[in-house]
């Protein structure tokens, strides 16, 4: 069992060990949709939402697998559940709020292959978090993901008119900015350790 406080878990997941900038999880959407502020915010919100739901599912699933002694099915069941969750969330949003659905539209299916979601489920299991801890962990991870995405989008929009050298155009520039952001986030290291 893990006894970390909820606040420490939140700070750890969102700032100290930011999913994108320290664990490199969810890099694909990070590189792909960080070009524009608006899409970045929406993607971040969608990911956070799915993260919380799949975190709860993964918690329940893990308990189930342990009780029937079938822990070897962990990975395959997690991925199936995540894919199903994304589908359900998509259908649910479509029904409840067509406006939100149109806004999120193309991003929702993409989330299935976002390694941050599966990574979150695996990490929370490895760390032995309880239900409340898992949810806070998911929230922190989602907010951290959104933060990284939104900061990157702001910088990239600002650089739209810059005369960047040909050498670094494209992904290379995004990675360099991500590296600098990652450096800046190192300032949060040890937060709450004393």
């Amino acid at each position: 069992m893990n006894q970390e406080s909820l606040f420490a878990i939140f700070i750890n997941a969102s700032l100290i060990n930011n999913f994108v900038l320290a664990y490199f999880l969810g890099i694909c959407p990070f590189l792909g949709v960080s070009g524009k502020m608006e899409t970045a915010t929406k993607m971040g919100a969608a990911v956070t939402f799915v993260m919380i739901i799949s975190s709860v599912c993964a918690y329940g699933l893990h308990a189930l697998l342990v009780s029937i002694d079938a822990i070897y099915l962990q990975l395959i069941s997690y991925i199936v559940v995540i894919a199903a969750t994304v589908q359900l969330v998509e259908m649910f949003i479509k029904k409840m709020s067509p406006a939100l659905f149109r806004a999120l539209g193309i991003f929702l299916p993409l989330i299935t292959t976002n390694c941050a979601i599966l990574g979150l489920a695996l990490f929370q299991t490895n760390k032995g978090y309880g239900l409340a801890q898992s949810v806070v962990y998911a929230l922190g991870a989602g907010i951290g993901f959104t933060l990284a995405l939104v900061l990157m989008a702001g910088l990239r929009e600002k650089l739209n008119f810059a005369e960047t050298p040909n050498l670094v155009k494209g992904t290379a520039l995004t990675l360099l900015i991500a590296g600098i952001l990652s450096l800046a986030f190192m300032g949060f290291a040890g937060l709450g350790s004393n």
Partner: protein
Amino acid sequence: MKEAGNTSGQTSGQKMLLTMTGIGVFCALMIVLSYQGTLPRIEQLKAEALEKAIFKVVPGMESKRTFRMESDGSFTEVSGKEKDARLVYAGYDKEGKLVGVAVEAAGMGFADVIKVIYGYDPEKEAVVGFYVLESKETPGLGDKIEKDPNFLANFEALDVSLTEDKSKTKNTVVAVKHGEKKNNWEVDGITGATISSRAIGNLLGTSTAEMAPVLHKNKAFFEVKKGQ
């Protein structure tokens, strides 16, 4: 490219179900087979790694027994395969005399949670060994907690003696600045790795404060040989 089109025409719900079931059965079979095939080897490797760590923290140990700590503070001997339980490992010398109990502890470090295992000797009322199981501290700086000989020397005999009524530790283990260790319940820190060495001090302080009285109380229990 042409083949791809063929499948779509002849699909029906039945066929979809059939294929999915087929693939599902095949996958389950593969997973179970590989799990069964590797299980003995994995468990052996894990047991070896754990054994190695326990031997490091309980000097003079020859054999070990695993106990689970129950919520009321008592201990039950277990096979050691339990996952979600608080386990301690009692070590015995050649004659079967208890030489120490290995306990796992964890706490927040500079970069992430640090996991350690330490040995407690209820006879000496002291920590007698220490080993870092898991840490992501900065290489060359914070990771000195794993290697620095001066730092590790702290844990050869770290005082965690109990009060008269044996209900709590007399002094709480704490890390101090390098070179300023005055009492033998203090951990001499590492220059430049203040946070990491303090984290170790804190997590040992918390863990010993909780575990030392309980372990001491159950000293006689651990000493009872198997089958007696």
